[in-house]
């Protein structure tokens, strides 16, 4: 919120004034009211293997994070460039593989990658789009310096929190919105719908039928699946509700079967179709993938997009962007050591106490080491795992992440945040102004994942 000289930066002027007048009592009441609201509406996420708290609330912070329009424009340009490159990259990987021929990425990184889906070779999705919905995790290091932490090209979650956080803020503090122009986010569901309609199969005439495919109520993001289906006016389906017949996809209704054109799936590749992928899976739709290959149905995001967000690929992203756009990347990658590389490994092993080390395929903040906050014993244990399988890890420096004011047990205090803007790609690229800000609620902590106790806050982009 403040610049280096300790002055409140201009986008935060109003929020700064408001914080000065916010009493502890009011803040506490608002926090409580927000929590009740989330609880009443059942805005929760499920935690696997945690019977006691099978559904948890994600803590909500009442202090918004603010971007100026100019900051956002710069960020958006970088995001759009990245998203176009990611889609071009996936298309290339599943077609001519020019980038491998050019030697910019070693072929082994692709071919031996678990996220690479050979069945996608030669498939041409509508409009050439593979990753229709991308969430890009971004951290800010200084006023003008943003780094991309991770690209989420499979089924990024959190957009429902972006929308509910905004609803909650408008409900709790309407006067804050009255005094400045905060760019709206609530048209995300209708933009999502437009995006999904724009990638309907060529054979579809008339209004395409869209469904959201969920693994069911026990999935950690079920609330989001239901929320998006509801907001888009699309059916929320489980695998059993869909079936393939006479070269088309149908859903089982209370009357005749209804034809389906676009499936916004929120289940992983491996479970999509037991006939093509995991035969033991019961949550997918038998025959779906063959239909997809035949262009009779659109799957969003396309199978195999995970090849673009794998952590081992991430390190090559600056090259990927240059290769496909011919431009310098507008957003930087966090400097990253690939532990598969002997020299890098030596460096990483020597500097474990100052690095963050992550599993290449991990997510949710599991299986990682945060050097500066770990004990000697934890570091030594991790060292053994790392040595045993170095190719499974990458390492990054702990960046001086920007912190934003957050309401804590001891009053307003700075806490580290990241940002996940949501990008839609269909007939055009659409970026919702804002995104999901995740905040590490523990003092000094850099881990913002909800499964690790992180919270969320509303994210404002101020209009000029």
């Amino acid at each position, binding site marked *: 919120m403040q610049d280096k000289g300790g002055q409140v930066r201009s986008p935060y002027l109003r929020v700064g004034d408001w914080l000065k007048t916010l009493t502890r009592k009011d803040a506490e009441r608002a926090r409580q009211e927000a929590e009740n609201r989330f*609880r*009443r509406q059942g805005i929760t996420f499920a935690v696997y293997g945690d019977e006691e708290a099978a559904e948890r609330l994600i803590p909500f912070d009442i202090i918004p994070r603010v971007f100026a329009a100019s900051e956002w424009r710069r960020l958006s340009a970088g995001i759009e460039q990245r998203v176009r490159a990611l889609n071009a990259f996936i298309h290339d990987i599943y077609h001519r593989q020019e980038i491998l021929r050019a030697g910019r990425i070693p072929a082994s990184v692709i071919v031996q990658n678990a996220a690479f889906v050979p069945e996608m070779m030669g498939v041409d999705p509508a409009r050439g789009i593979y990753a229709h919905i991308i969430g890009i995790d971004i951290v800010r290091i200084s006023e003008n310096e943003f780094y991309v932490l991770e690209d989420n090209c499979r089924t990024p979650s959190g957009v429902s929190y972006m929308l509910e956080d905004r609803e909650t803020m408008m409900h709790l503090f309407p006067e804050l919105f009255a005094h400045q122009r905060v760019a709206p986010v609530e048209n995300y569901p209708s933009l999502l719908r437009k995006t999904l309609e724009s990638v309907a199969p060529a054979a579809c005439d008339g209004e395409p039928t869209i469904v959201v495919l969920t693994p069911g109520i026990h999935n950690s993001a079920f609330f989001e699946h239901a929320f998006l289906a*509801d907001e888009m006016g699309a*059916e929320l389906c489980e695998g*059993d509700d869909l079936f393939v017949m006479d070269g088309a996809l149908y859903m*089982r*209704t*209370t009357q005749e079967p209804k034809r389906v054109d676009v499936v916004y799936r929120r289940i992983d590749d491996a479970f999509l179709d037991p006939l093509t992928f995991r035969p033991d899976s019961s949550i997918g739709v038998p025959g779906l993938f063959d239909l997809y290959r035949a262009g009779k149905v659109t799957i969003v995001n396309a199978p195999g997009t995970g090849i673009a967000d794998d952590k081992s690929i991430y390190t090559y992203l600056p090259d990927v962007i240059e290769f496909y756009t011919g431009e310098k990347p507008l957003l930087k990658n966090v400097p990253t050591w690939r532990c598969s590389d002997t020299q890098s490994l030596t460096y990483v092993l020597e500097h474990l106490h100052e690095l963050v080390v992550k599993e290449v395929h991990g997510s949710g903040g599991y299986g990682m080491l945060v050097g500066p906050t770990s004990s000697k014993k934890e570091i030594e244990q991790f060292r053994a795992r790392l040595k045993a399988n170095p190719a499974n890890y990458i390492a990054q420096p702990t960046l001086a992440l920007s912190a934003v004011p957050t309401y804590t047990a001891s009053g307003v205090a700075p806490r580290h945040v990241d940002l996940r803007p949501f990008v839609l790609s269909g007939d055009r690229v659409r970026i919702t102004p804002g995104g999901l800000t995740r905040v590490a609620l523990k003092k000094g902590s850099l881990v913002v994942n909800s499964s690790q106790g992180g919270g969320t806050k509303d994210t404002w982009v101020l209009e000029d």
Partner: protein
Amino acid sequence: MMLGRTAASLFWMSRYMERAENMARLLEVGHRISLMPGAIEGHRDEWRSTLLSAASEQTYSNKFDTITGPQVADFLIFDESNPSSIRSIIRTARNNGRAVRTALTRDVWESINTTWNELVAVKASELTPDRLPVFLDWVKQRSMSFRGAVLGTMLRNENYYFSQLGNFIERADNTARILDVKYFILLPKPSDVGSDIDTHQWGQILRSVSAHRAYRWFYRNSGYKPWLVAEFLILREEMPRSLLFSSAWICTALAGLSALHSKRYSVHDQAEETRDRLRNGRMEDIFQSGLHEYLQHFILSNNQLSRDIGATYNFP
């Protein structure tokens, strides 16, 4: 157009919320009888009759050797291993609601979700017998809040009709069961018929469907008479928990679906036959052929209707 699974979830959500209310009523009656010390010599099996009415005697005796009030109450309220406990029922209702949130209004969802959130905060150890009535009242109130939200906010479309079907199939089943079990199990000897205890049992049957006052208004100067109580709960359309009332509503909901779909199936005829038989029914005939047999037959055909509705509308 809606998914078959959505229809099934709406149907079962409403069925289970109706069942929760019924379970609370049964427990209430058991509790009331247990509070009358020695009033009914030799008939202190009120908790067994509660288990029987709840169709839970078997699952209970698989777990416990003796029948005690607190144990039965705990089993029928909190026991997670008992699919008919209030906790299991409400959990199932909410899971069904969660699966079809997109088909529910916000009020319906929040009502059911709040019920669950409040229920999980209730600890078994805190529910001493003196607090039981307050808790059971709460269950009934929550069930009514749910029903009120359905009636007050849902569009009169498929969602609504499937929810109503679940509601009234369950209610018909419950009323028939209470009437059957209470009468034929609680009454031990033919010589008791017409006695104080008999009158008392009929009073409790009425109470378990919240109809003892309504009965007085309806039949004015008559005391509790078996054929009148049975008539009230079987043949009177004025009585909202009667078999005829429930049957008529099942037909209304099915007619709503048939109008929306412009399609009529054999389940429509099936439901209307049942309703018409009730409309034209006479208590003399029912008693003549045996009330127990009559009710057993009704329960079976009601279950069959439920399955046929599922098959007709593609419930998975």
